[in-house]
């Protein structure tokens, strides 16, 4: 197997220091390039001050670094109006922000919120709880036999009562890519619903253009695309963000604070209360520049090649079930189960071979129930993955099967 990595392992200190490690859990979190780590350190060593608040040159440096980072990331995901790109802690916080701030005001008794059966808990539980709190109905679009969203069912479900449609761009559990243009067409033609998209697994792997997709909200997490933990993004349509109440209150998001009431700052500050996580935003921008250097089209073709190779080898094992659609409709992950080996046992044995996979429900319990399993094994690939990772995975799976083979 001679599939090369797209990004050299040498660029990733943890991987370089652990040559025997086969890290196949990038969907959980990605490994970090030195370029990103250097940018993080560089900020603290040369430009560290509280952005917006100081009147001295260093503060101006910090402010510029923070907003340059915003501009870089906005460009990466096709957002022309960069002040509509809000920094959050991650996809989970972004979804909770929309549910609380937009949903809290606009969703009431008789309204409907539509989600899919693929959703990660971060794009399922906030809407479920919003519906319960505000007396609305949660409706769930079911899946095709290859675990893609059933567009016919979606079509039937959308109507005048639909206030929110929350959908994943790429499933973290089984990798299905949602045809967003089609979804938008269906929703817009039948309702005035806002469309909220979970892009956590999409932005690392696919070229995303928010403005071209005509979405209302789009969220993703920095740590999945070579960035640090603790920083993520919510992109929103300006008219919606300006009309909705703030999510958190405090410094920076205010304009005037009187004893009895306060007024709000403009975008993006209105939704960025408190000292921003400027350092991680700067580091995320460095990660984005690293990915741009690789070229997202090549990121996608590299991962398709790995997914095809991995799926072919895994399918050749006896008693295997592979979940999700074919590689052309899938991104990032290969989710599977072996008949005689519980996913948890699989992960432990693979660990002893230096192979890191994820075994569990992948924060998608509604999906697991529909698959009829409590857990699956999931291997995920990223820019530093290569053919030797696929070989190690299959070798370790074979060893696990031999260990657990039932002897009559």
């Amino acid at each position, binding site marked *: 197997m001679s599939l090369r990595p797209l990004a050299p392992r040498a660029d990733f200190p943890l991987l370089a220091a*652990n*040559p*025997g*490690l086969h890290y196949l859990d990038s969907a959980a979190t990605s490994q970090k390039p030195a370029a990103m780590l250097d940018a993080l350190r560089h900020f603290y060593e040369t430009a560290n001050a509280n952005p917006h608040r100081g009147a001295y040159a260093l503060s101006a440096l910090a402010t510029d670094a923070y907003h340059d980072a915003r501009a870089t990331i906005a460009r990466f995901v096709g957002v022309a109006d960069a002040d509509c790109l809000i920094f959050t802690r991650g996809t989970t916080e972004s979804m909770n922000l929309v549910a609380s701030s937009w949903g809290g005001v606009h969703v009431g008794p008789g309204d409907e919120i539509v989600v899919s059966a693929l959703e990660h808990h971060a794009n399922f539980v906030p809407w479920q709880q919003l519906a319960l709190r505000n007396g609305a109905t949660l409706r769930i679009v079911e899946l095709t036999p290859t675990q893609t969203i059933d567009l016919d069912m979606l079509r039937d479900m959308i109507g005048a009562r639909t206030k929110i449609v929350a959908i994943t761009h790429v499933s973290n559990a089984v990798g299905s890519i949602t045809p967003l243009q089609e979804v938008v067409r269906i929703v817009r033609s039948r309702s005035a619903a806002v469309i909220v998209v979970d892009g956590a697994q999409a932005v690392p792997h696919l070229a995303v253009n928010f403005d071209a997709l005509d979405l209302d909200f789009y969220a993703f997490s920095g740590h999945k695309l070579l960035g640090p933990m603790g920083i993520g993004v919510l992109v929103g349509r300006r008219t919606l963000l300006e009309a909705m109440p703030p999510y958190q209150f405090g410094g920076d998001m205010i304009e005037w604070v009187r004893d009895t009431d306060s007024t709000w700052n403009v975008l993006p500050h209105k939704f960025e209360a408190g000292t921003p996580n400027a350092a991680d935003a700067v580091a995320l921008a460095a990660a984005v520049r690293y990915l741009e250097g690789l070229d997202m089209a090549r990121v996608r073709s590299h991962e398709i090649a790995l997914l095809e190779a991995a799926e072919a080898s895994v399918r050749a094992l006896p008693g295997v079930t592979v979940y999700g659609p074919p590689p052309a409709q899938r991104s990032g992950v290969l989710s599977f189960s072996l008949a005689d080996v*519980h*996913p*948890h*046992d699989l*992960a*432990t044995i693979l*660990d*002893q*071979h*230096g192979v890191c996979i994820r*075994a*569990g*429900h992948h924060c998608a*319990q509604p999906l*697991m129930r529909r698959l009829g*399993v*409590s*857990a699956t094994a999931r291997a995920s690939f990223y820019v530093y993955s290569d053919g030797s990772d696929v070989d190690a995975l299959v070798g370790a799976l074979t060893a696990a099967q031999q*260990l*657990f083979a*039932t*002897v009559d």
Partner: protein
Amino acid sequence: MSPVSVVAPVSASIAAMYQDALLAHHRAPHNRRVIEAPSASGARKNPVCGDEITVMVSLVGDVVRDVAFTGRSCSIATASASMMTDAVRGLTISESLALADAVDRMLHAAGGSAGSSEAGAEPLPDPLTPLRGVAPFPGRHGCAMLPWQALREALRAPAGNR
């Protein structure tokens, strides 16, 4: 061995025992059956992987006369449940609960940098010896403890619990 593993090393003999005994219990678990009309029962689910174990107990006075389990689980939880039923039969309620605590201590002690502490050297009944092999794998402690937690639930419940 994983290059980034920071777990305590397991001696070759324990590792081997873990493998053979674990697999034996996994392939042919002891007392995986239903007790009709048990004196008490408890069930626990592991939210991480969805495994579930139900433990049923028949008591005569405060002595565990019979114990069995059902459920769907990984090899470690199944094997632990199987060994548990061997170890607990014939013990009193308080002895059984004390044994659950001892297993808990054994699992969590071996992760320390000091190696085996007193809890690591604490004796366990023979049927439970293979569980020591799970101690170096913190990610699997929950699996090994699942049946014991179900047992605790059964034995701490008031008489007549189902």
